[in-house]
């Protein structure tokens, strides 16, 4: 499976944020998306998720069966500020989600099994989501996004505001989930990107480019990334 972006562009008034982007993402990899503040990482995600209409270009998914347009179900999108419906309890949210996605989920396990998998304590499962902590909301959002088993998982700065333990759990989780899907992960933290991601891509002058690791060691690779990012200013 491949996720293909073809000639996508997006401007706000006169500012060109995405400039004729074409890129191919491959299955089974975690991509680290780096870019300076305001480089357009969130805009790119929003365009992929159809929250914002791109000015031009297209998104495809290429499978063994051939090439087709991207559909809403293909995408899971985890935002940096977790958004969950505050008036539901964790269990109710999960039940609702599974109810309406029965067909795509396939084999449904008992709800408590999912909570256990995410490390959400039994006493929290029946609390209203508005009373969940930031980290717990994040886990809920992640849980709902992975149950649906989307082909593409977009993560916008997902670990920055989590405590060390939860962040470490999430990292493990993302690694375990990377098979059979494309994970794109935007972050400002270089160490995190180097630690977790298989490929580093830069959003640079409105375009995407891969930073080739080839034979470089850790330090050289890091310097190459910083130099490339600095160029943008």
């Amino acid at each position, binding site marked *: 499976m491949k996720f293909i972006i073809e000639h996508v562009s997006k401007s706000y008034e006169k500012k060109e944020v995405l400039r004729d982007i074409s890129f191919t993402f491959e299955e089974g990899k975690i991509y680290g998306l780096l870019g300076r503040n305001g480089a357009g990482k969130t805009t790119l995600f929003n365009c992929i998720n159809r*929250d914002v209409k791109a000015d031009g270009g297209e998104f495809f998914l290429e499978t063994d069966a051939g090439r087709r347009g991207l559909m809403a179900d293909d995408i899971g999108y985890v935002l940096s500020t977790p958004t969950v419906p505050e*008036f539901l309890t964790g269990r109710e949210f999960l039940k*609702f989600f599974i109810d309406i996605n029965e067909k795509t989920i396939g084999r449904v396990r008992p709800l408590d099994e999912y909570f256990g998998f995410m490390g959400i304590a039994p006493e929290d499962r029946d609390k209203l989501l508005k009373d969940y902590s930031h980290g717990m909301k994040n886990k809920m959002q992640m849980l709902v996004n992975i149950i649906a088993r989307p082909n593409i998982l977009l993560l916008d700065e997902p670990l920055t505001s989590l405590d060390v333990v939860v962040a470490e759990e999430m990292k493990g989780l993302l690694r375990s989930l990377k098979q059979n899907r494309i994970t794109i992960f935007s972050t400002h933290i270089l160490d995190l990107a180097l630690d977790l991601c298989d490929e580093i891509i830069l959003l640079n002058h409105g375009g995407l480019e891969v930073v080739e690791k080839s034979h470089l060691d850790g330090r050289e690779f890091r310097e190459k990334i910083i130099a490339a990012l600095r160029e943008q200013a």
Partner: protein
Amino acid sequence: MKKTLILSFSLKITYRVNGILYSLKQIPLVKKLLPGELYGMHWLKIVASVLSVIWEVASVFLGKFLYLLLMVFLPCLLYDGLPGQEVFLHILLFLTVIGGFANTTLFNPTKDKYYAIILMRMDAREYTLVNYGYSILKVVIGFLPCSLLFGLLGGVPVWLCLLLPFSVAGYKLSYVSYTLWDYERRGNVYNENKLDKFQWLGIALLLLAAYGLPAFGLVLPMGIPAVLALLSILLGAAGIPRIYRFGEYKEVCRTLLSDTMSQMDASSRSVRTVKQANEKKISADVSITSKKSGFEYLNELFVRRHRKILWKSAERISYVCAALTVGALLALYLKPQLRPMANKLVMTCLPYFAFILYAINRGTSFTQALFMNCDHSLLTYSFYKRPGFVLKLFRIRLREIMKINAVPALILGFGLALVLFVSGGTDQPVNYVVLVVSMVCMSLFFSVHYLTIYYLLQPYTVGTELKGGTYKLVSIATYMVCYFLMQLRMPTLVFGGMTIVFCVLYSVVACILVYKLAPKTFRLRMG
């Protein structure tokens, strides 16, 4: 001093100008014509600044002119048979006392102060003194020609007309110096936008004294306001040194502004407060559950956990409508002479009820709650945006809001029909049916209307702000149409019939539009 005045002035003009430009950019068609670098355009800024300065000067006189004309001079003409100059001074005296504590300028937490003192870190004492001095000067200069004009027209002696502006300033200065003294003593910061109930009661009593007493032929003899005017000038003058010497303006301003700060900061803080305010509306009752599944499950939990804001007010309105109906019936029963009039009213004033139903319909609060506590988060999940699901939920929600709006409408409809019956009935019994059906149709219209524009124009941003320009325009247009209908007098049968046809047609068209367009338009607004 001069520098502070110029700085605070240019700050005020800058944000006023930017405010004007910003609101221009919110209007749908106009925003396309405006260039992106609008805020950087030099000549535009100069034009807007000149306009601002002209406005500043004009407002000095215009405000006082309108105030004296509408609040004092014209009311004077209502009291026949009383000496004009005494009524004039009587009303002005009580209003001035109210203004003395409710309009101090110094204790008004304004944006100007917030920007200058908190954000720009200007010297609080100097800023306050300069601006306060300027505002007192504006009072005196603005009042002088107006008090001469209206005072002389009202028969007040010239010397008193000349004193009045200074006396108005005197009341304000005395109260401010007293309040500063009170702060030094007890540490209480007075906020004129947050009056307590005693102050409100005081305002009510003073207003009553100003306009009520003359109605009973009671006015203060001219001597009292005249002496008080002199006294207030002396007191005010005596207060000036205290105001000047007061050393804790920084603390006073910070406390004063701290409450209002959160609302002014357009950044995350206000988003958080909006969010928290909405989360408070969610019922914490753990016994609320649902046996349904899928979207019906989501909807039932939503409605039951938001019962307080969705159903409670509809219930309250229903009770009021029912009580009014009973009251009207009772009145018609006790006073048969009212019946012909009531009968005529019911037969012609149905258009009036379009506005009443507009005012009591729960459409806006329903969609707002939907967005803030439900769609705001769920729209970030792609499954929620599948066309089939969007429409399914639209149907469920339409049913829900129709139920909520229909209850008061039914009561009003039956109430009107009953009033018609008791007040002498009608030759055409179809009128009864039209009354009830058209009421229900109107409530149906408002339900469909608000939900449709919510789905088609989704006006809220991720930050839970209301940004959609078209949405705002449609809301204003709705209001205007309903307001216009209120002025209309038409036979119930004609208007009712037209309403029923229109509402049904509108609902059909709106639903078709939603089915065609909502899957594309029902999205989160980014930024």
